[in-house]
């Protein structure tokens, strides 16, 4: 029983969610292989080879894998999948994009957002915005699982030295082309794996306020920034800041919700945080039902006060 984990990376560095996915794989079995597919990504393969628990690294390094289109990655993974009992990827925008394609090509079900491994064929996953947890089992010959990173610790690096085996990727899919990418870089920690998150909602009122009020707090706490859907829709924050059922799932040590009401869909993305702080002027806001500490009042005075108190 060998397990194939698909690494998420940007051709230079490995994304943290891969480490949590490797831990989920280790809960299933010991023979863990990791596929690093991309272009000019050998440094990523080397980083993966040192992760504890990884037995072998497969490196598919080819110019046409630069954009890592779902069409191309799914074809490659499907070719490899016959040798494995399980194929795992992180349940991130990356994993969600290509993994169902793999499952369909293999004619097997996919189990999305796995939060616990009960056995090699039985898994737990949240449904209905996390308001229910379903235990499901699969008899398919290959189990295709996307893994919710916040439910598993990250595998640690350093100890291992797994061999790196170069493999050849099939020819590229000719009918889809990546035209452009606009990617922002930030000095702040990555939202998905951050220890502290400061998140803003509609209560901020504008992008200018979002930046002026929340950035000093994020600086003071060394935090990543997040947002509610309402704040993203209104253009206060970029789309990949959205925390929730249909955005990013996070579980930091500390989550500070500022001007966020606490809709079901938002709670679905952050209610597993260790400590939740809510700042809201409405004492009835549902966010207070999940917050460990709440402050009722105007965020425009409370947040600057919090910043100066932290200094």
């Amino acid at each position, binding site marked *: 029983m060998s397990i194939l984990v698909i690494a998420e990376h940007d051709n230079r560095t490995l994304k943290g969610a891969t480490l949590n996915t490797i831990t989920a794989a280790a809960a299933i079995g010991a023979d863990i292989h990791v596929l690093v597919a991309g272009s000019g990504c050998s440094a990523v393969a080397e980083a993966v080879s040192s992760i504890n628990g990884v037995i072998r690294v497969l490196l598919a390094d080819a110019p046409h894998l630069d*954009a890592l*289109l779902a069409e191309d990655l*799914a074809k490659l993974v499907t070719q490899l999948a016959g040798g494995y009992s399980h194929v795992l990827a992180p349940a991130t*925008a990356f994993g*969600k*994009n290509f993994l*169902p*394609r793999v*499952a*369909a*090509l293999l004619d097997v*079900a*996919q189990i*999305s*957002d796995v939060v616990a491994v009960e056995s090699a064929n039985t898994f737990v996953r949240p*449904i*209905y*915005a*996390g*308001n*229910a*947890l*379903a235990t*499901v*089992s*699969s*008899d398919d010959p290959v189990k295709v699982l996307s893994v919710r990173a916040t439910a598993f610790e990250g595998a640690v690096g350093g100890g291992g030295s797994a061999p790196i085996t170069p493999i050849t990727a099939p020819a590229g899919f000719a*009918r*889809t082309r*990546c*035209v*452009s*990418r*606009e*990617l*922002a*870089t930030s000095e702040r920690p990555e939202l998905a794996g951050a220890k502290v998150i400061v998140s803003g909602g509609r209560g901020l009122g504008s992008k200018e306020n979002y930046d002026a009020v929340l950035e000093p707090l994020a600086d003071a706490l060394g935090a990543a920034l997040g947002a509610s859907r309402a704040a*993203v*829709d209104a253009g206060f924050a970029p*789309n*990949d800041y959205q925390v929730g*059922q*249909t955005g990013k799932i996070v579980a930091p*040590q*500390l989550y500070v919700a500022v001007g966020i009401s606490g809709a*079901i*869909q938002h709670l679905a993305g952050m*209610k597993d945080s260790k400590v*939740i*702080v809510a700042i809201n002027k409405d004492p009835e806001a549902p966010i*207070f039902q*999940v*917050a*460990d*500490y*709440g*402050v009722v009042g105007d965020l425009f005075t*409370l947040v600057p*006060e*919090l910043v100066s108190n932290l200094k």
Partner: protein
Amino acid sequence: MKVLVPVKRVIDYNVKARVKADGSGVDLDNVKMAMNPFDEIAVEEAVRLKEAGSVSEVVAVSCGVAACQETLRAALALGADRAVLVNTDVELQPLAVAKLLKALCDRELPSLVICGKQAIDDDSNQTGQMLAALLDCGQATFASKVKLEGGSAMVTREVDGGLETLSLELPAVITTDLRLNEPRYATLPNIMKAKKKPIDTLTPAELGVDVAPRLKTLKVVEPPTRQAGEIVPDIATLVSRLKNQAKVI
């Protein structure tokens, strides 16, 4: 050019799901149902493409129980031209739905399929990608902008870190994200008109698709609930709690 839009009947997004006492699933008796919000966005996008003159026909499809006809009527009221119900009482999982849609695409030959990125009940986020695989066509998930040009679609996608634009040769599958558009409300005249639009009914057997579930649900439970904490009087108390009690700063 024809666009196919699959729509799913799900729990209304304002309703909090309750787990059945016997752990067999979620209680949907007497619960308000509605079109999956992402599918509404998909219908809206298809209708806008039609209004812009780049699409000639919008066909809505729903797979499931007879009550899915209501969801199809809602799609027709938003501007879809006709609808197909693939009627079955079997619990449909994403792979089965993708196979039904594939079989329907083989009959209808749409140039584009626009799906919601995820259904808010099972939260799987699979069907569009699976359909694209079965059709062996290109896919653009999590779309925030769609432009049709000749035989291709330019689609901007919401990805980690920002946006990515793909050019897809048609036919192709697109899945919608929240920022693609804001769906209109159906007007009363359009709701009346929708009652006269045709809904064809098919069965999985007529489409030659085995829809038997692959995954077995062993149990469904409520997640551990969080207890509400403390409302602190001021920021100084908050900071002290975070330092001394929670020890997170």
